[in-house]
Every structure is written in C-alpha cells, then in structure tokens.
C-alpha cells in the first residue's frame, strides 16, 4: 500500500546497496526466464500465467515511476501483456521476456506521459504501438532513465502540501473536492496545487521529452 501522504517516505533514495553474491543472483534470475520458457513449452496459458506472476508487479511499479497513477500503470502493463498474447509475439521473442516486457512498458509509459503533458491524447494513440519492434539504443535507454529520475526529483522537490495533494489525487484516486474537504482547504487552493505540480512535470518533459519525441515519432 502506498503511504506517501501519510508521511512515510515513498522513495528509498538513500537505500544502500546490499552486498550480494552477484553470481548467485544472476543465475537465479536467468533461471526465472528458463522456468517461463519451460512453462510456455508446456502450455501457453501456463507460460502466460508465470509471466504475470513474475513480472506484473515490478512492471507496474516501474511504470508508476513515469505516469504516477497506479491505475494507468496497471492499464499500461495490462495492454503490453494483452498485445504480447494477441499478436502471438510470445512465440517469437528473440531475447528474454523480461527485456521485451520492460522495454514495451517503458515505451508505452513514456508515450502516455507525453500525450498527457502535451495534451494531445487520442483514443487510439496507445493501441498503435508495436511492442515487439522497439529500436532501443543506449541513448534512448538512458533518456528513459533520466526521465523517471527527473520526475521523481520534481515531485520530491514540490512544496510539502503540494506534494501531498498531488499524491492523494494520483494514488488514492481522490477528487479535488474530497481532498479539499479532508485537508480543510478551499477547492480553488487544491486545484492550484495540482496545476502547479503538473506544470512542474510538464517542464521536465519539455526539456528531455522532446528529444525522445523526435526519436520515436
């Protein structure tokens, strides 16, 4: 459960890296892919189920870093799985399922954010993505990482009340009026805080998002 607005830190920025036996960890994760492949060999249904079990939650968690709404994040991840099945791409995946899924989710999350912040969302803009044919260069990988890091930073640096209202609105799915009632503020104030938060996000997107926009359009 997200408890960002209750005062617990939402981001573990200061998280120290725990010393782990790198070799062991690596083989364990590779084995996961192996398990999925053998599950797919058994039946596509089983394979699909194990994909959901292993990757659904971390993928949602990653998508949230971009779109900052759990519902949207789950929709995006759901769409990626849906397309993976519907186009039959699961049978012809070149590398690992993990790479396919993460790349597709990041790409879609990015597009969603671009459309939300530039205000030209169309109903079909999310469906016309071909998840299997993303040409990722090291630059695009890094630009995506920079994007979610900057978003996190922007939200981190919002004034406390503004941040609280933003997270309540996005994560707890509350209406502006409900937030106003709970915090004892005027509706106008809440709206102003939301507008401010979105304005800050838009600024981030315009500085680096425009580069990606050129790459993928």
């Amino acid at each position, binding site marked *: *459960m*997200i*408890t960002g607005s*209750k005062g617990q830190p*939402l*981001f573990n*920025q200061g*998280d120290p*890296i*725990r010393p*782990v036996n*790198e070799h062991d*960890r*690596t083989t364990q*994760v*590779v084995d996961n892919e192996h398990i999925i492949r053998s599950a797919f060999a058994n039946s*596509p*249904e089983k394979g*699909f*189920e194990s994909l*959901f*079990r292993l*990757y*659904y*939650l*971390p993928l*949602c*968690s*990653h998508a*949230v*870093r971009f779109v900052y709404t*759990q519902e949207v*994040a*789950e929709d995006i*991840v*759901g769409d990626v*799985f*849906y397309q993976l*099945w*519907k*186009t*039959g*791409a699961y049978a012809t995946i070149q*590398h*690992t399922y*993990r*790479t396919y899924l*993460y*790349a597709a989710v990041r790409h879609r999350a990015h597009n969603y954010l671009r459309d939300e912040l530039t205000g030209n969302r169309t109903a079909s803009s999310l469906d016309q993505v*071909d998840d299997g*044919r993303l040409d*990722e260069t*090291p*630059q695009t*990988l*890094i630009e995506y*990482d920079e994007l979610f*890091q900057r978003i*996190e*930073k922007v939200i981190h640096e919002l004034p406390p009340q503004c941040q609280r209202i933003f997270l309540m609105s996005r994560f707890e799915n509350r209406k502006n009026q409900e937030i106003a009632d709970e915090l004892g503020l005027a509706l106008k104030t809440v709206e102003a805080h939301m507008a401010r938060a979105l304005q800050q996000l838009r600024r981030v997107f315009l500085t680096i998002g425009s580069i990606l926009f050129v790459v993928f359009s």
Partner: protein
Amino acid sequence: MDDIVNKAVLFDYFSGRVSPLQKKSVESWLDGPGNRELYYQWLHEWEMSRLQVTANWQYAYEKTMSRLTDSTDEPQEEQQPNHWKIGTLRQWINRSWLIAASLLLTLAVCSWLFRDVLFYKTVRTGFGEIQSLTLSDGSTIVLNANSSLRFLRFGFGEWTLPTDASYQNPRTVELAGEADFSIRHLPDHQPFIVMTPKGLDILVLGTQFTVFSRERATRVVLRSGSIRLSSQRKNERPLLMHPGDLAVLNQQGRLALTRTAHPETMASWKNHRFTFELTSLREIANMLHENYGLTVVIENPQLANRTISGSFTARNANEILQLIAQLLQINYARDNDHVSFTS
C-alpha cells in the same frame, strides 16, 4: 569498460546517484553485446527491491484473459499483426489465408485451453476492496474484501425450459470469503445455491442473507425468507433456517444453529462499518488479516483478550487501526503489511 560498470554501479545509476562520468561509461557499456539484456535484468532486480505499489497479478491475469476471449468476436483482419511486409497481391492473398487458418486454429486451441475462463466468470476482490455485482437473473451480491465468487458466464439461471426440471438446474455460485446476497425469486421457483469450500451448500429460493466462509470459520446469517443448508458430511440432515438464525459450521464440520437479534450487523461491512460485540483484539486481528492482508502481532495475551463493543465507520485499514488504538488506549506501529499492537 566492463570492469567499471557492475551491478552496484547500475543500481546507483538507476537511483540517480552516479557521476556524469559514470553515466557516460554506462552508456558505452550498453553498446556491448548482450549488455542490454543484463541492463534489464538488473533493472528488474533493482525494481524488485524498491517496489512502489502493490497489485494483484492474478486479478490482472484473469482480466487480460477474459479480454482476450471477449475480443474473439472482432473481425479477423484486425488480429493480423500490422507490420507484415506485403510483397505482391498474390503473396498477400496466400498469406492472409494462412493467417486466417492459423488464427482459427489458435482460437480453437485457446478456447479449449481457457474453457474454464470462457464459461465461468470469477469476480475477485483485493484486500480492503468491496464490490457489488448484479447477476443476469437480477440477484445482487456484495463481496467483502479478499473474497471471490465464481459463476456461469453465459445463460446464468436460464437453462430451465421444462418447469419441473428447474430443481435439476439451480442457479449455482461458488463463494470463497465473505458476501451478502439478495436473491431474486423467479416465477418458476428456480433455486439458487451458494457452494462454499468447506462443503456447506446453501439452497435458496429468494431471500437476503450473509455468508462468511473463510479458513477459520463458516457462518451464515439469514435476514429474510428461508434457506436450507446442507453439509457434504454424511448423516448430516439438511437444516432449515428462519430469519434471525445464525448457523455456524465448526471445525469438525458439524452445523450448529443459534439466534441473533441483529442479523444485519453481519453485513455492516457493506457500508464500511465494523460492528463489534465484546470482540477481542485477537478476533479483530484475524479480521484485519483476512480483509486487508495485514500480519498482526499483539504484544501479550492479556492485550489480545481485551474486547471492543460498538459500531464504527472506517474506510481503510489505517482508519480502523487508529480507531482500535484510540479505543483501547494502546499504541500500534505499521510497517507495510506488518502491524504490532503494544500497550
């Protein structure tokens, strides 16, 4: 470059804590063969150790599956992957036939594989979630948190052409967890059966009642109408319930009947209300575990035996935790799904 970039560096990089030079070396490292795979593997591990949300993958899986089965009505052209490179017209015709045939085959195989998903619908609620639904026969059901209901997707309650055969074709649902039922009485007296995992079946004609069927106990409370309970144990006679009756299936699988003055309190969760009647903190801890997925630790047995009475409104787990702490004048600490009560 490989010796500069390792997992620790990449983790720092994901967290935005590397120098511009390190970032540059990550970029050139990404160009190396196979390193994109490794990048995503480490991104996955990094994400796994810093999860930001909780989500129910089973629910999402079933939703996606039913979305896939629903979309089989679409014209087949739409299912064609749209990035096919099309050469000549003739090639295109051949290929589209091939695609149509293989799609049909895939559809047939899928619908056989997912026949359970196809023919049955399962509605599942997550922790802290309450959902109400209306079945095609007009009956309404409210599901409490962490519960699931499985029923026929198509033609629910409609397979009763000969009137005398209606008893052979009851409307049947399977419940795991907790739910409140308001069953519509049909003109042909077609019965409604609620099946529970512990083998207790509830036969209904048209009435309102609440079922609690979880690991620790199975309880049924009747508000109006009449229902018949039958246990799958041998030698157990079916039990007829009247309004205000509370039936409890004990650990040995025996049914016992008592009266309750307020049958509606067992369904007060529908309005986010919690009704306690000398309810011990231990029982409340069980409820928190079942409804919100919390693991509750109580400092000592004396504290666990303290009781609460009254009816309270709480919209989420935090509200109810605060309420309990205030009422009993005790402290609690919550760390994600772990809660501890101390006096």
